[in-house]
């Protein structure tokens, strides 16, 4: 499916050719797997969800009556008596970005039909995600212990707590769903569902293919990318 050569179509140069190619019969994105196209469009839609959240956050932060708390103080971690700002977040971010790396490698080995490597790397990604969720749970409980709630916040504007829990919670849900799927797909890779022409899916007639790992990867990279924005908006602003 990856052969981009299109027979029988003489494309005119320039914009016309591009338009003809885009509008040509059967597929708009030549050779792109249905599932992959679907994931891209879903992610576009999801981008709008997160954009709405973040724009609301900007608006909400701009119009509160009480001052916004200082992120470097709120998110500091005390290590051996010294308060290190943003330490936990730095580690969380590092873990998540690393898991994007392992995911990318998994995709590569998948296409090389290297079942073992692919499976282990998907599993490693899942564990990375799990670590992230774990650390996030730790951070939440720390903030809650300090008195931060969705409806109030001892450090300043109540909206800080509201937006923080809502947006990181929504992102954390995305990560958790990703982790569940990563485990399922790790199992599927090891079980050989993508070998020898592929095994049919559980509910569908579609045959398994390593492209599914790539599709899952798209989702995973997206979740990481969103985290970078959340990181910038909540911790650095």
């Amino acid at each position, binding site marked *: 499916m990856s052969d981009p050569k*299109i*027979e*029988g*179509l003489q494309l005119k140069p320039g914009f016309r050719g591009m338009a003809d190619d*885009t*509008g*040509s*019969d*059967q*597929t*708009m*994105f*030549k*050779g*792109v797997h*249905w*599932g992959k*196209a*679907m994931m891209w*469009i*879903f992610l*576009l*839609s*999801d981008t*709008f*969800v997160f*954009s*709405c*959240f973040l724009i*609301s956050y900007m*608006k*909400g932060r701009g*119009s*509160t*009556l*009480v001052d916004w708390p200082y992120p470097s103080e709120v998110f500091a971690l005390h290590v051996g008596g010294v308060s290190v700002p943003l330490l936990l977040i730095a580690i969380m971010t590092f873990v998540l970005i690393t898991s994007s790396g392992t995911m990318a490698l998994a995709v590569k080995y998948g296409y090389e039909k290297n079942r073992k490597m692919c499976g282990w790397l998907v599993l490693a990604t899942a564990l990375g995600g799990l670590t992230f969720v774990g650390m996030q749970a730790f951070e939440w409980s720390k903030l809650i212990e300090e008195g931060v709630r*969705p*409806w109030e916040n001892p450090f300043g*504007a*109540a*909206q800080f*707590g*509201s*937006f923080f829990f*809502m947006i990181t919670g*929504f992102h954390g849900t995305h990560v958790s769903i990703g982790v569940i799927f990563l485990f399922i797909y790790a199992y599927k890779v090891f079980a050989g569902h993508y070998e020898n022409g592929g095994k049919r899916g559980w*509910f*569908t*007639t*579609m045959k398994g293919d390593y492209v599914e790992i790539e599709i899952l990867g798209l989702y995973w990279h997206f979740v990481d990318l969103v985290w970078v924005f959340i990181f910038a908006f909540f911790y650095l602003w």
Partner: protein
Amino acid sequence: MSDEYDNNKTYQAQSSETMGGSAPASPDMDYVRPAEIPDQELYHGHSFITKWVFCQDAKVIGVQYFLTAVFTGVVGLILSWLMRLQLGFPGAAGFMTAEHYYQFVTMHGMIMVVYFLTALFLGGFGNYLIPLMVGARDMVFPYVNMISFWMFFIAVAVLMASFFVPGGPTGAGWTLYPPQTILPGTPGAGMGILLMLVSLSLFVIGFTMGGLNYLITILQARTRGMTLMRMPLTVWGIFTATVLAMLAFPALLVSAIMMTLDKILGTSFFMPTIIQAGEVLDYGGGSPILFQHLFWFFGHPEVYIVALPAFGIVSDLISVHSRKNIFGYRMMVWAIVGIGALSFFVWAHHMYVSGMNPWFGFFFATTTLIIAVPTAMKVYNWILTLWRGNIRLNTVMLWCLGFIVTFVNGGITGIFLGNVSVDVPLSDTYFVIAHFHMVMGIAPLMVIMGAVYHWFPLVSGKFLDEKLGKWHFWFTFLGAYSIYFPMHYLGFIGVPRRYFEMYDSPYMTSAVGMNEFISMAAFIVGAAQFILIYNIIKTLKVGKKAGHNPWKANSLEWLTSTVPPEHGNFGERLPVVHRWPYDFSVPGAKEDYITQTTPPSEVVHTEVEKT
């Protein structure tokens, strides 16, 4: 079909196959590029449950969507009767309190816009028609599609459940503006609003699943020869509407989540400092106008989500029944896409007097009036399609004509409301009610009815009765027009919308007679819909058999292997497309239509324009 496409060959083999038609003229001229995608394998249900309940056939899902949406529509209709009873004859319905009235307004508005029209056009017509019209065997992800319907079903169930919870359904108006929406003082501010928000979220999730299907099916699963510019306008309308929905519903979802948190956790996203009944509430610092921006960022595209499929469908109906190609097809496509894109930049025209920064008014008035241009082009093209056509004045065509009249009328009043300073005296009055009922209530309804009469022979294999159909049309069209045309003038007088009791000021008492008249008309229009139900029942029993392609149309949905189409749609071989679906009355052709699958070599003596 003069085509050598072989489903049994593997994909690789297909792409190296050389094409040729059986027609003698010239094998070259019938050339269609080889297949790019393998044929889809389908999951065929065998038990009753997998065939009719948890079914994966888009056509059955379409019908399921259709019936569920119509059910909600009937609920919405009954609510409108109750409201009109109160407005025309205050106190006539003894149980009607202001609380009830506002709950009915809210549920009626939300049901009609989201659960009735959106679900009907995209879920109903989208599912049934997209695979058929683009020449696919089914949607690309039949299983997800099935879940999509059941999500919608649960969303409807949750919505209907809110009628029965303590406090009743929410009475916040379909716009759900905070802070009142979640405060006592508004009916249903407890369980009612929560169920509404949950139901909307479920709807969005369900719709996303369906929407992905529609988009990928149109983008990646068309049959051979079906280029984008050969797709029927119905598909273009549904496609663009789905894109809008995928990008607009997120704003609804986010505002629903934030409002839910405001309600149950006591956050203050939308809640400023409030004193109610002398007590300061535990809220503060939030922005009610932020909600309005989010809501209308969804809400305005939403009206086009309803309108664009209607535009597309009506174009096809007019073309087929005028026996003439749609005039300016390319312009029509670009108008649909352009209107869709622009619709994301006009949302604040609903907020001219909301207290937002007044300088936004200039920008949004300009963008809003720009949309009028492509919209007007579409109208011109519809009537120019009629020009020198050979118009069958059957029921389907009547609905289309009714659509043109109501749509143009409602479009013109839209120019009043879009033009900031003209909106100031008119906003939040009955002028608005009349405007949007005309343009997005009645006009799309006309298209739905036309579409029902047009495609019923495909879905059931039988013609609906023409005579009953015409009665149905005239009652509905004349009735609805006499409801909403005079209603604009109530708005001029200054009668505000969402008023449980009409005003007793001297200048408004003059409207009593008009209100009684409008209510009578509303009862008649509602009752007239039972003609359709009777017609359907009668037709299913003793209707005239339709057979293959009864309207002599060109598009693929009429060229299926069986009528009604079976699962898989096209029998063993997928059709191959050689032209656009509008080759009607081509000079030199034997018949007045040339189907999309007719290869050029069979019609060499005609003067078709290359498409």
